[in-house]
């Protein structure tokens, strides 16, 4: 076979350094776990940003960074409470953190020699599993364990309660519905970001001729990164909303 059918992704800084210094075990380790390394970089960056934003706490924002942080926090709170209602405020920190974390991970890949950790399924699946377990915990806390099982069985009442087929069918249907959520959440985010990264790495090989297309795609990549982070949070908020609303029955 002359040319490989698989398009290789562009090299990131860890790959370059690991190849430049093959004897360095730290770089080798960092390259081996590159998705986690880049995620940790984002965590450190966001941690530092949050530290500087909250350093001089006051009733009125002292710095521009604090004003921007308050604006973002308020926007996220309005978004979550707009869907779930006032009860949703306790989920704002979780959903807000997810949004900012995913957004920065998505956009990080657009910087040359950097990589989006969200282009890897392991990262997005881990995030989706966090959402999945938190939603299950919230539903069990809200309905009680037996109430949750009753909900999964489609709340059989009257004649239906004495038949085994319908509740069993509803139970399997609901269990599969719950399993769909982490799968679709993780695959959608991974697919979109990975596709963007691949397209950018492909266009980067065109040289000067591909520059306009590359810049256009970078712009679209930025837009896609923001939209995908927003969709992830929108779906997470809807899952919490469905777990909290007792009267929400199957469609």
């Amino acid at each position, binding site marked *: 076979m002359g040319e490989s059918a698989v398009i290789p992704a562009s090299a990131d800084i860890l790959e370059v350094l690991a190849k430049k210094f093959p004897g360095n075990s730290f770089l080798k380790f960092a390259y081996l776990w590159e998705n986690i390394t880049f995620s940790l970089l984002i965590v450190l960056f966001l941690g530092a940003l949050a530290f500087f934003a909250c350093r001089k706490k006051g009733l009125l924002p002292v710095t521009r960074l604090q004003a921007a942080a308050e604006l973002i926090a308020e926007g996220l709170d309005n978004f979550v409470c*707009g*869907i779930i209602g006032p009860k949703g405020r306790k989920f704002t920190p979780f959903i807000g953190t997810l949004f900012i974390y995913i957004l920065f991970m998505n956009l990080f890949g657009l910087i040359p020699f950097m990589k989006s950790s969200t282009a890897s399924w392991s990262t997005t699946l881990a995030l989706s599993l966090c959402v999945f377990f938190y939603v299950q915990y919230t539903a069990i806390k809200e309905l009680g364990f037996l109430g949750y099982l009753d909900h999964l069985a489609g709340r059989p009442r009257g004649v239906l309660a004495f038949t085994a087929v319908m509740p069993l*069918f509803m139970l*399997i*249907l*609901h*269990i*599969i*519905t719950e*399993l*769909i*959520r982490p*799968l*679709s959440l993780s*695959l*959608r985010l991974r*697919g*979109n970001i990975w596709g963007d990264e691949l397209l950018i790495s492909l266009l980067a090989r065109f040289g000067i001729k591909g520059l306009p297309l590359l810049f256009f795609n970078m712009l679209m990549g930025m837009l896609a990164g923001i*939209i*995908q982070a*927003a*969709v992830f949070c*929108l*779906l997470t908020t*809807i899952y919490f*909303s*469905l777990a909290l609303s007792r009267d*929400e029955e*199957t*469609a």
Partner: protein
Amino acid sequence: MVSFIPFILAAGPLAGYFTGVFLQEKFHLPLWAVLVSVGVGFLAAITEVIKILRVIGRVNK
């Protein structure tokens, strides 16, 4: 924004298949049980999409 719909519709039969294989191995069910499970998975995906669109519709009101 509606990019989640095809992914949910694709993830439904996938989740159904995995559940079917698990149930088949656990309870020694025949092969058609997996096919039924895939069908239930597709049905679950449709109900999931309707549920999500219903919440979005409620919020947009």
